């Protein structure tokens, strides 16, 4: 985690270090502060369950004080841990405040000790796993296993109802059904022209187109065909000069009248 000059060379006692204390700073191969803490904890040569967190904090802080003197750049997580351990140490040493809401210093120390023990346990578990006779490393499976052939037997979930329904469905489909097309009731243009010709005699003023429609047609296909046929009829009659059309704006009402001066 140390960027900067190679640190493998620091085999000498750290300058200003404790008398006779051999401090070798080599962070290569450490995985973050917890790794360093575990290494230091092991140096206490006690069961991790009885580790002295205070002592551990001192060791860690001394370790990184030395690193700072060597002006090594330490990654942020190492510094965060150093700061947190310094804080934990001060709380462990100072008398406890009564009104504290946070977890006690002892709880924090216990949590740290627990985490170190748990990581140590997982490391050992990993080593134990890797020490087993591993398939593909220590033992081998059959190289040319024939495999077991699976013959699939189809099971069809078909009920008697499904069967009879299928028969009925296809029978019904094949019944000689007569396709009867009902005669379409449409209003023809011829009828519209006829009707218009009759009605125009009485139309001198502009009259709205709809009033030429046969009465009694409210809606539906016949009504729409009547409107279309009547409109087409007016165009036909206008072309012949027999009537005039007016529409003031697009999609506005259409007005019809007899041309002025034309004898009815």
């Amino acid at each position, binding site marked *: 985690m140390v960027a900067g000059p190679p640190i493998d060379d620091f085999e000498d006692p750290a300058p200003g270090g404790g008398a006779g204390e051999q401090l070798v700073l080599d962070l290569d191969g450490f995985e973050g502060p917890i790794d360093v803490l575990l290494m230091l904890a092991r140096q206490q040569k006690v069961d991790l369950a009885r580790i002295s967190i205070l002592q551990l904090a001192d060791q860690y802080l001394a370790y990184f004080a030395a690193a700072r003197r060597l002006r090594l750049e330490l990654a942020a997580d190492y510094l965060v841990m150093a700061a947190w351990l310094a804080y934990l140490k001060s709380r462990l040493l100072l008398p406890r405040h009564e009104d504290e809401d946070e977890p006690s210093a002892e709880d924090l120390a216990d949590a740290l000790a627990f985490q170190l023990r748990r990581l140590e346990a997982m490391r050992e578990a990993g080593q134990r796993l890797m020490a087993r006779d591993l398939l593909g490393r220590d033992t*081998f*499976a*059959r*190289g*040319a296993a*024939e495999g*077991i*052939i*699976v*013959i*699939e*037997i*189809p*099971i*069809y*979930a*078909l*009920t*008697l109802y*499904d*069967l*009879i*329904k*299928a*028969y*009925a*469905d*296809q*029978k*019904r*489909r*094949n*019944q000689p*059904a007569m*396709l*009867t*097309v*009902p005669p*379409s009731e449409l209003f023809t243009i011829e009828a519209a022209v006829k009707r218009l010709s009759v009605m125009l005699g009485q139309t001198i003023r502009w009259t709205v187109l709809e009033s030429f429609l046969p009465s009694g047609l409210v*809606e539906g*296909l016949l*009504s*729409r065909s009547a*409107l*279309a046929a009547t*409109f087409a009829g007016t165009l036909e009659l206008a072309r012949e000069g027999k009537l005039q059309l007016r529409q003031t704006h*697009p*999609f*506005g009402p259409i007005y019809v009248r007899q041309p002025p001066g034309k004898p009815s």
Partner: protein
Amino acid sequence: MSDPSQSLRVVEALLFAAREPMPEAALAAQVPEDTDLRALLARLADDYADRGVNLVKVAGGWALRTAPDLAGALQKEAEVQRKLSRAAVETLAIIAYHQPVTRAEIEQIRGVSVSRGTLDILFEAGWIQPRGRRRSPGRPSTWGTTRPFLDHFGLESVDDLPGADELKAAGLLDAAPTPTPLGPIADAESDTLPEAGVEDGSGTLFEPPDENHE
């Protein structure tokens, strides 16, 4: 110093783990030089002679192979749920009602051709079987249902199948409603005016235009 029984274990393990038959030279490389490999292989072949696995000499060398007489035991039967196609169900129904029936007759009734596979599926399911040939030109073979067919559907005999009258009574033969030929005409209008916000001509031919029509 060679330990024959240890060399035997090594050769056995090598043959077991090998992906391909092991040439004798490759086996010899893994045992002490003074080993009588031929004798080892002969002993191993003998050890396995009556077992479920045999040592055999094949093209590339030596290999352990499952005993040929056990091939059947190495096949596992697994039941899988399948769904019959509509064509298959209908074909089965027609065979049940009209048996014995030729393929051509099934096709005539269904109005479409019956694929070879459809009859195969029904045959493999054990529900239909050939029923002799029709005494007609080409002597076509006929199909009928089987005992397992009756068992599957819980029928005593094919006579238990409901007849046409009963189907009618159950409403299964009701004719489909005839299509109304002029129904969708109004839609055709709006189809020709894709950009118009016209639902359909609901009575007036003239609807307010879209902005972009002006």
